[in-house]
């Protein structure tokens, strides 16, 4: 059996943060300048009681409505989130019940950010190709907006909330050639970067945000997201080209062999610089964040779905995916499109 991506859907919350609103909040900015600098026109923001599982439920229901798989056929649920509904129970368990999935299904949450979708593909492939599962529901869902301080101008223009549902399914046939539908993979981890993208309070080391010293930079509280943009940028410029080259070497391919490149949609400036550095032609490089922002682990599936909808991605095309960010953590893989 071979694991392949068979369907992707995503869901965005109704709440919206536009560049007009940001320009009002941050004197000196204009909507045009924000769009030009970030490549983002609007972000979607969850309501106060709207959580990761609420977004994931809608994304998964859309996926089932597409008809590729019925809920009762799902035998494993993987949920990537850093903003779960609760510390415990596992949000994937809640989703099993809310989606009416079989009680015989396995379910787990895993805590990764922007590398999370590629990691999820790796886990799903492992489950399927070792015979442990046949229909894996890979969910990515984040509500990072709840971590953002309203006055933090370094992060509010970038992040948006979203969830994506991806069906990774066993199929008996392999694509032409010697590559599988998904893989090979390269991974990377460097925990020295932990301080550069962090929510300090809320875990057991700093359980609450009360009476804590003020955070760093422009973030007034340890309970909010702190991002050291310059360090993250330097990390990405080092890690991503190396990961791409390592993956191409492992797959015995070159840049020219790849039909489409889908990188984590961090911000347009970073993406364009990486594209230029790697000498990837613009027509092979997906930028799909203008109406959603940086949705963390959902950026890659959202960009893949948009690429299919815009007819940039046809069946059997070879796509290179790279996720990179918080941790630091990064991962890259190739997929042969079966969408």
């Amino acid at each position: 059996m071979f694991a392949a991506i068979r369907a992707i859907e995503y869901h965005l919350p109704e709440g919206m943060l536009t560049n007009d609103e940001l320009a009002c909040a941050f004197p000196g900015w204009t909507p045009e300048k924000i769009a030009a600098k970030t490549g983002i026109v609007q972000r979607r923001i969850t309501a106060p009681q709207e959580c990761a599982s609420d977004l994931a439920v809608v994304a998964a229901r859309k996926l089932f409505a597409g008809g590729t798989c019925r809920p009762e056929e799902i035998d494993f649920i993987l949920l990537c989130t850093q903003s779960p509904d609760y510390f415990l129970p596992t949000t994937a368990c809640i989703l099993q019940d809310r989606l009416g999935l079989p009680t015989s299904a396995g379910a787990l949450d895993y805590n990764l950010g922007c590398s999370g979708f590629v990691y999820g593909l790796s886990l799903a492939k492992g489950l399927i190709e070792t015979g442990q599962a046949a229909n894996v529901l890979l969910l990515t869902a984040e509500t990072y907006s709840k971590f953002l301080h309203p006055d933090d101008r370094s992060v509010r223009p970038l992040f948006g909330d979203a969830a994506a549902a991806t069906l990774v399914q066993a199929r008996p046939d392999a694509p032409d050639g010697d590559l599988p539908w998904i893989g090979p993979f390269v991974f990377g981890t460097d925990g020295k970067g932990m301080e550069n993208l962090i929510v300090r309070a809320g875990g057991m080391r700093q359980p609450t945000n009360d009476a804590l010293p003020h955070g760093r930079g422009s973030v007034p509280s340890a309970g909010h997201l702190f991002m050291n943009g310059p360090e993250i940028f330097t990390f990405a410029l080092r890690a991503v080209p190396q990961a791409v080259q390592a993956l191409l070497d492992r797959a015995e391919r070159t840049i020219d062999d790849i039909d489409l490149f889908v990188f984590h949609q961090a911000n347009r400036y970073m993406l364009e610089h990486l594209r230029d550095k790697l000498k990837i032609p613009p027509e092979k490089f997906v930028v799909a964040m203008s109406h959603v922002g940086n949705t963390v682990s959902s950026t890659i599936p959202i960009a893949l779905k948009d690429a299919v909808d815009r007819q940039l991605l046809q069946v059997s095309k070879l796509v290179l995916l790279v996720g990179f960010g918080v941790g630091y953590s990064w991962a890259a893989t190739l997929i042969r499109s079966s969408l």
Partner: protein
Amino acid sequence: MTRQDALRLLEKTLELAPHTLTGGETLRNLENWDSLSTMMIIAMADKELGLPLPGNRVAQCQTVDELLALLANASAKRAA
């Protein structure tokens, strides 16, 4: 990279008119300076010198001269 070359590159990167920088300027007082400017400088150095500058070091620079020193240091490292 000469000092003049570096000044011209900075002007181009920060979308300033040519020959407007001399070195003594305070970065945050420059026209167009914002949170993305640091990233633009890191990207420029990566493109010109083939190595990304340490983000924190760039962010700590207060003046154009400090930035030039960082670039010169990176340029020397590359040559070595």
